[in-house]
């Protein structure tokens, strides 16, 4: 188990009556970037802060590397954290900020300077070393915060929604930089976000949390294509969850009755009877003829978004949200239309 860097064993954290994290267990492999993803209040930030040592668990054990750090405060843990608000010390220059962790660890001045400059070089900001944080843009400030954390070569690098204060375009660039840096230096990182696209883009693995517990752990693709339950399906990407009936199972395959059609899908542990089907908006194909298609429907709303068209379609299964790449043929509101299921983006889920 030497390749595991962070391990949570049955960790619970309660603030008075409120349980923020309930009996959570997971392991993070060395060199991986793992994202804690979930809606606000799901416990992801508390989990991160327990790795950092800013909160101590109510029960359960936390390991970092070989050590049990459950009751160790932040100061004594080999971690470093990048904050949503950057948390650069406003009275110190960029270089002083980056060298702070080395300084309080009592490293010699020369080493502090050299290593801080190297770290700044990694994020491409060495030319701004004597500026004050307030003289930098938001993106630059966050790069400094990353450099300040990386310079300590921590066993785990923690990110608490590091991109939320940046505008959309910058967000994509900085996240790519963070991922690139993490992979280049082979760092283990834990990254908290509520933005599923961000999580899909940069993670080795994603821990989806909901209501203080883990909903699912997996690689990005696994979560998108085989969500464990309705919540994950809905939270990662969009999903139409409709009620269907499994008529029979055969090996790993279930026969699913959807409207007028029967489809064969992996049964994922579900038996015959009523079930739920998660259908991605791009998993529905618009057919010309309403009568021959699996499901008949009527266009309720159509929005042109440049690269694709979004439709809300009224069907016997309920209202479905559909995206269509064919922008040359936009269906008008009120048109009757037939819907078929595509080959991707259709999966049975637990409720």
């Amino acid at each position, binding site marked *: 188990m030497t390749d595991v860097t962070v391990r949570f064993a049955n960790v619970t954290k309660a603030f008075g009556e409120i349980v923020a994290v309930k009996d959570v267990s997971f392991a993070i492999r060395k060199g991986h970037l793992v994202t804690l993803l979930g809606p606000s209040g799901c416990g992801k930030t508390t989990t991160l802060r327990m790795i950092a040592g800013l909160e101590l668990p109510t029960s359960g054990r936390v390991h970092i590397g070989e050590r049990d750090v459950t009751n160790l405060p932040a100061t004594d843990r080999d971690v470093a954290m990048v904050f949503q608000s950057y948390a*650069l010390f406003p009275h110190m220059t960029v270089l002083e900020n980056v060298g702070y962790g080395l300084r309080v660890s009592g490293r010699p001045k020369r080493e502090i300077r050299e290593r801080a400059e190297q770290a700044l070089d990694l994020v491409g900001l060495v030319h701004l070393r004597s500026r004050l944080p307030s*003289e930098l843009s938001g993106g630059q400030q966050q790069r400094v915060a990353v450099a300040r954390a990386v310079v*300590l070569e921590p066993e785990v690098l923690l990110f608490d929604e590091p991109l939320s204060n940046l505008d959309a375009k910058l967000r994509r660039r900085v996240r790519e930089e963070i991922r690139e840096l993490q992979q280049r230096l082979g760092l283990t990182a834990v990254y908290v976000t509520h933005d599923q696209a961000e999580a899909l883009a940069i993670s080795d693995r994603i821990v989806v949390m909901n209501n203080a517990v883990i909903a699912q752990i997996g690689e990005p693709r696994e979560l998108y294509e085989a969500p464990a339950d309705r919540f994950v399906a809905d939270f990662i990407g969009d999903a139409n969850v409709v009620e269907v009936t499994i008529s029979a199972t055969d090996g790993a395959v279930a026969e699913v009755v959807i409207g007028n059609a029967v489809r064969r899908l992996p049964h994922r542990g579900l038996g015959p009877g009523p079930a739920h089907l998660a259908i991605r908006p791009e998993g529905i194909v618009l057919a010309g003829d309403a009568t021959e298609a699996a499901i008949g429907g009527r266009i309720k709303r159509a929005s042109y978004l440049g690269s694709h068209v979004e439709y809300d379609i009224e069907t016997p299964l309920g209202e479905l949200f559909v995206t269509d790449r064919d922008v040359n043929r936009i269906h008008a509101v009120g048109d009757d239309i037939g819907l078929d299921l595509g080959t991707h983006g259709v999966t049975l889920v637990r409720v």
Partner: protein
Amino acid sequence: MPLKKTGPLGLWLAIGWVGFVLIPWYAQSRGLFDPGWLLAWDRQSTAPGLQQALLHGRLWLLPLVLPLAAPSLLLGRRQDTPAAANLLIVCGALGTLYCLGQGFLITHRGWGFEVLEAWFGPLGVRQFGIGGGASLTLLAFLMLFAQGIAAKGAVNGDRFVVGSITLIVVLVAAFIFFPVGRILTGALQGPDGGLAPMLFVERFLDNRIWGLGCLTGGPRCGVAWNTLTLALATGAGTTLLGLAFALVVTRTAFPAKRALRALTILPIITPPFVVSLAIILLFGRSGTVTQFFAELMGIDGGRWIYGFWGVWLAQVLSFTPIAFLVMIGVVEGVSPSLEEASQTLRASRWQTFTTVSLPLMRPGLANAFLLGFIESMADFGNPLVLGGNFQVLSTEIFFAIVGAQHDPGRAAMLAIVLLAFTLMAFWAQQQWLGRKQYTGVSGKGDAGMPTPLPTPLEWTAYAITVPWAVFTAVMYSMILFGGFVEIWGRDHSFTLRHYQDAFGVTQGAFGLVWSGTAWNSFTTTLWIAFVSAIPTALIGLLTAWLLTRQQFGGKAAFEFGTMLSFAIPGTVIGVAYIIAFNVPPIEITGTGIILILAFVFRNMPVGVRAGIATLAQLDKSLDEASLTHRATTLQTVRLILMPLMKPAMLAALVYSFVSAMTAISAVIFLVSARYELATTYILNRVEAGAFGIAIAYSSVLIVVMLVVIAIFQLVIGERRLGRRGAAAPSGFAGAGR
């Protein structure tokens, strides 16, 4: 992996032992900094604790060796095991309790309680007040206790935080709750010192306190009713004026806003009596205005100024700037976008003001009113000078102690009544309003222009503020000029006599001679104000940091306890200190230390508030970033928070310095021949009718305080924050100087 940083256990043990075997156990009559005690173990008065026990028959000090020695077992070992934690807790608690217990049980008269004497027979040796040695030993025990608690995992096992909390709790208990508690027991004591509950009831129901004679045509009402009426009137007056000033400054195009804002600094730098003196110069029997009308209409002004109206006028003049300061914050806290929203919904300016702005200011108005109310209750200088036959609680307390009646029991009773009034007001303010103040102001994202005032309101505000501001300006110029005339109202010829009397320097045989009569009190005041300012700021800011950044059990009680002294009138503190600290174990009356302690604990809430206001602007993630980058809590405080809190530090330092210089109500009980202060000197001059020298001295104090504020600004310097400057919280007034 960094090593877990070792705890400061050895350091505290060393401090404990130094206190126990090297430094005199008891208080030194010549002060700890007189080196006469060095190694003089053979003398009773100067021996440290261990030698007291072994050489001088104070055997009861010997058991302290045990709790001081036992924790040495843990040196070089882990201290966070349950066994180690328990050992530290037990040793710390036992040592502390034993130190305190023996201090109260064995006093300057031998046994502290007659029962003990009956049991054990008379005691040959006695004890004096605790000194440097005992204090250090006690401190060490407290910190051992705190280390133990931290090792148990309290507050994430943070030794620094637990130690700070312990220290502050003990200090507040010793120097606020203990003396105030002694007042209660004082009021229960009869003239012979025995317990007299019936006398307590009799004193409480005294007609001089609660009588309503003035309503039925009698000569006067009880002093409690006088105080309440005055406080209500003053609170109403200052709140209205404060609101008018705040509206003019924040919501109009008035040209002299800066000059008006400058008014807010006046109460901070104005010595007590100054406003009253100026009022006497204007409206007294030989005052300028009185004489003007006497000549014009042939009427004799009389002595109307000495009584309710004179005191009220002086208080409103004195405290309006405080209400002004509060109301500026309140008015600025009303979000302009709300007013804009109201106007786009077709409300007129007047409707907007009455339906949106004013209701939003309501908590702030009530807050300002309560502040004025508390200030008035606690005010001592103005009623003393202008009260005449109109007596209030604070002056009655004073006369009960120093007057011909000399009745400490009655003083204690009056103090309890006054304390009850102010605590009720304070409680109301905290519970009902105090918190709303902080939520109103959000730092960002609220653009928009404040809506101009409705025209009639604007002109009303001008009509109130301009004459009042002119009046204030006239008064202060009277003070400056009054020091340069022979006798105000009779002989207006120019003279420097008053300044020479007070601050004369002559060339003597051995160099300069500071021959002025005021030099002694002046230098004492500067020194004591300076010395007390530093612990005030440090303790205040530390408390603020604990309150805003740490989570621990009993935090609400901790907060209330530390803010409580804000509501305790100075006269009450003064009486409490002489009752509590006149006898061992803490025997410090007549020293400079008692003055410093009184200032520190009276001004501490100011440091706390300044700190809380500043910390609210510093994102908590700064602390966390420091901690996750391997800094200890102490390093975080030193490297991150202290530099960023410089403005708060400045505010706390300056405020506690100047308020120490202008304090009168508490210290008038505590000064001694050796430690006379400027304000008590001025009071003596006023009582002797020597207004000239009193005024001259007051002007000097005002100038000195302005200079000091300027110097502080330069020394502390600006924060290196670039454009992200955060405004320093400006002055706070404590109750009753």
